[in-house]
């Protein structure tokens, strides 16, 4: 009965193929789940050109930042906890790094341009450190810079009439003198580690 044997072989082959396929799928989804979703060191696609409005009402093009490292954060002034603590912390970090950080700018890009006017942003950022500079723009400009930096934000309505809050990424991006992403400072990262990363950024070693 050679044909029956052949059929059996074909069936076993199909089973083996299905098994391999399942194993492959599981492995792929595992890899996806374990892989960090935040950009990591050396990821060339984080960052990119942007054009926004500063807290002084002037326009800022990322091209004008060439030659100097900078830091960038996405937040909003109606944030009760993470934004003020992050800005308070980065101000302390700059203070500890000392003169090397004298010219380092930390751009606070609002994800809530409807409420965060340039004037409000200036008051807000200056209460932490003059080196923190508020940036705003049109909805489209904010969306574009967030996309370039792979940052996440979303408007979430609350019960108080037409009030809302914002979900948003909390990382501070450290960008080198050529506008390339070097590393990020996490919201819960230890102070000493942040100081070290900023020092390395300014030393040009990344």
């Amino acid at each position, binding site marked *: 009965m050679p044909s029956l044997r052949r059929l059996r072989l074909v069936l076993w082959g199909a089973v083996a193929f299905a098994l391999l396929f399942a194993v492959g799928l599981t492995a792929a989804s595992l890899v996806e789940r374990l892989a960090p979703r935040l950009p990591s060191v050396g990821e060339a696609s984080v960052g990119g050109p942007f054009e926004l409005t500063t807290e002084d009402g002037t326009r800022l093009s990322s091209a004008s930042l060439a030659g100097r490292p900078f830091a960038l954060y996405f937040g909003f002034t109606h944030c009760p906890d993470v934004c*003020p603590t992050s800005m308070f*912390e980065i101000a*302390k970090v700059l203070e*500890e790094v000392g003169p090397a950080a004298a010219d380092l700018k930390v751009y606070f890009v609002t994800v809530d341009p409807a409420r965060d006017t340039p004037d*409000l942003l200036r008051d807000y950022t200056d209460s932490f450190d003059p080196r923190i500079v508020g940036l705003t723009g049109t909805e489209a400009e904010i969306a574009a810079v967030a996309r370039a930096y792979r940052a996440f934000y979303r408007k979430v309505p609350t019960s*108080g009439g037409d009030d809302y809050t914002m979900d948003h990424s*909390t990382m501070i991006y450290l960008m080198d003198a050529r506008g390339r992403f070097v590393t990020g400072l*996490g*919201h819960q990262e230890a102070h000493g580690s942040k*100081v070290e990363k900023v020092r390395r950024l300014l030393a040009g070693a990344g």
Partner: protein
Amino acid sequence: MTFDRRSLLLAALVLPAAPAFAQDGIRAGDLAIGAPWTRATPAGSRVAGGYMTIRNTGSEPDALVGGSLSVAGRVEIHEMAMADGVMRMRELPQGLVIPPGGSVELRPGGFHVMFLDLAQPLRQGDRVTGTLRFRRAGEVRVDYTVQAMGAGPDGRPQGHGH
């Protein structure tokens, strides 16, 4: 510190009037509310979070459903969570349940009383008066101590440089 937890507990039982325990002793029916605090706000910000511990010594669940603050236009009960580096904040429309025999901690990064439309900035060292509204225990008056802007989850300034 030479005291372990048990001797502290014993001290608490033996010395119920000790000042450390008197200051966070807000009682409201079956609820004990510990040391409410908030943070100094940066210029321009019109929001802040209220933090405390609420213990339910009774046999029925209660829920924190609202409140007020003298300098806030509005108060909501919120939950915050961090996942994949993203901060998400949600209102708890059903309130925050305090289980019988249990306690719930309101702290930065987690549950908080959300103060909205602040009429003035909160300054470190100030005390601001408000109320908390519970489903069973009703309206309770609380005083929040305003801590530093960088105060950590325990209400104390976060150490830096170590």
